[in-house]
């Protein structure tokens, strides 16, 4: 199929659709459930606590340093389940493809999906494929949904957070957002920035298994970055949060890109990180577990929950001064000078 392109007919539901699904999608990650190509997948489970999530991915460019839209769409949904304290077990995938899209490129993306789900030990059990006219979509959109089983020891929620709890991030911040923006803006750096696009499932499962109820809350700080996540925690709990800039892990190249474009690293999206609120007495242990995980080696304790007279997130800056960290507003635009 080298050189062939997606045609409207590939979305017509007929032979060409069938060929596309079998030759490009099932050949990449088919399994006994998905291969039946039924309207819905029947799952055998005796568990009651099932978590279900869905997310749409419209990232541009489709391929970026450290990942691609396929890997992103899997990790994004896995992470949504993982930070809820669930072990991901099955995903769905819906593709919206623009007429003219190269099948070979789709194949590359599907192979990336296949690699990611293999690594994460999950299956895609149902899906959908639509082709739209040229101009009606931007190359490729992916929607993934996922279900997971709640881990027995997971007991998390805003209501469980209290003053004194520590805040942990699982690694360097801002890498995904700055990678995407640098690609778009055509910027080059001596050390290329790499997206953190990846799964936090291993981290989440291990810390819950070991620390159970001491894990008070988890969230993956995607759009809006750490600033949005911490502000939401603060607003929902009515507690203040204090973080220390000296302890926040940031890759130097990501920092340079953010400085150049005028962005605050705390506002920038991440796609392979988790923010953990943990009871103070078990925080060091939690940190060590994170550091032993594949995607957690740069984890750090960055701050704590405190009592204040209003919910507010505050940063102790590198020079020892303090400033408020606000909820990001609007979309980020690179500055002029």
């Amino acid at each position, binding site marked *: 199929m080298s050189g062939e392109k997606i045609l409207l007919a590939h979305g017509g539901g007929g032979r060409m659709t069938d060929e596309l699904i079998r030759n490009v999608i099932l050949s990449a990650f088919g399994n006994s459930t998905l291969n039946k190509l039924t309207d819905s997948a029947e799952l055998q489970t005796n568990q009651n606590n099932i978590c279900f999530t869905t997310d749409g991915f419209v990232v541009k460019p489709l391929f970026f340093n450290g990942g691609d839209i396929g890997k992103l769409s899997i990790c994004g949904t896995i992470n949504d389940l993982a930070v809820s304290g669930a072990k991901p077990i099955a995903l769905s995938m819906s593709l919206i493809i623009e007429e003219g899209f190269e099948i070979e490129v789709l194949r590359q993306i599907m192979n990336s999906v296949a690699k990611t789900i293999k690594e994460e030990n999950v299956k895609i059990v149902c899906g959908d494929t639509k082709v739209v006219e040229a101009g009606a979509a931007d190359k490729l959109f992916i929607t993934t949904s996922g279900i997971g089983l709640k881990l027995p020891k997971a007991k998390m929620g805003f209501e469980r957070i209290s003053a004194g709890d520590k805040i942990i991030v699982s690694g360097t911040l801002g890498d995904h957002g700055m990678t995407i923006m640098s690609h778009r803006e055509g910027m080059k750096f001596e050390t290329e920035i790499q997206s953190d696009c990846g799964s936090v499932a291993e981290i989440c499962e291990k810390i819950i298994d070991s620390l159970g109820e001491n894990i008070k809350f988890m969230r993956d700080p995607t759009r809006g970055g750490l600033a949005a996540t911490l502000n939401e925690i603060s607003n929902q709990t009515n507690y203040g949060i204090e973080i220390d800039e000296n302890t926040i892990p940031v890759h130097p190249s990501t920092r340079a890109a953010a400085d150049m474009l005028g962005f605050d690293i705390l506002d920038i999206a991440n796609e392979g990180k988790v923010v953990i609120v943990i009871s103070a007495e078990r925080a060091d242990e939690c940190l060590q577990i994170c550091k032993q995980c594949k995607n957690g080696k740069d984890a750090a304790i960055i701050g704590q929950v405190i009592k204040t*007279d209003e919910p507010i997130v505050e*940063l102790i800056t590198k020079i020892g001064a303090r400033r408020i960290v606000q909820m990001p507003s609007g979309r980020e635009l690179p500055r002029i*000078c």
Partner: protein
Amino acid sequence: MLERINRAYKQIARATTALGRRVNIMEVCGTHTVSIFRAGLRDAFPEGLKLLSGPGCPVCITDHGYIDTVIELADRDDCIIATYGDMIRVPGRKGSLEQRTSKGNIKVMLSAEDVLKLAKENPAKKIVFVAVGFETTAPATAVIVNEAHQQNIKNLFVFSNHKLVIPAIRALLSEVNNNIDAFLCPGHVSVIIGSDAYKPIVEEYKKPCVVAGFEPMQIIDGIAEICKQLADAAPAVSSVYPAAVSKHGNKTAQKIVDEVFDAADGYWRGLGVIKQSTLKLKDKFSSFDAEKQLNINCIPEEDLTGCRCGEVLCGLIDPPQCAMFTSQCTPDKPVGPCMVSSEGACAAWFKYGRRRRHRQ
């Protein structure tokens, strides 16, 4: 680090004693403004020091007339507007460019080089480059005009609103009501123009001009140096950013700007007309001049909205003193340009300037 901070504190105390009052330092550049807020420097310095945010953000000094003209061009079917990102949100009287982007003819650029590419890819369209910014972005515009000239490209038009920093500093100091004791001079601009460019300011107005980079410690060092000069009554040009800024600046960039542009009187939002402060294309390049070729009539006009961005830019008021600040004017719905750009004084105050609350 602590030693440098202590030195700054000591110098600030010396300066306030020598002047017998508060020290007012204006940071001209928007990047400095944001760095100062992000590092928490405003709260960290003693009461005797007041930092003023000057007219160093290209978006903030752009007037309604210019924005309205760009929007008029965006409404033409034969034009594609090429603009830097934060210009698209600046409100004119007919809305902002962002509200017109659904037509698909407004393209956000980071690099001026992309404008040339856009012109080549769209030969049937008139590509209008919204050329704003100070001495930092003007050389890139000059390069693409030169290249377009050499490559005989016919569909590129530059709507120049490039501004020069030194005339603005001069205009601020010429105001009898100004309360500026010294300038923390912009790092990026100074890389191009060189630190010697500030010498006439120091000689004429006896105000210290110190160039600093954007790291908090460099800003602290710059403020310490300014306060030392004020305390010693020995105003001078100096730089705490010697790795990037030379005395004479970037000669290559200066040369290309001189080849393509002439300085002309220009309108600055809040400051009015400043002599020889704007760059306009030389007659040799008039075929690329949007104002001459596209039948537009850009009349600079002040806004009538009650917005006080002009006074903010002159260091006369802080953003919270404007009645619209955080009520009618927010980053999501900006009224004035200082709230639009991430480097605008009002946006920085909005995002970072809220005072912290007491810990219980």
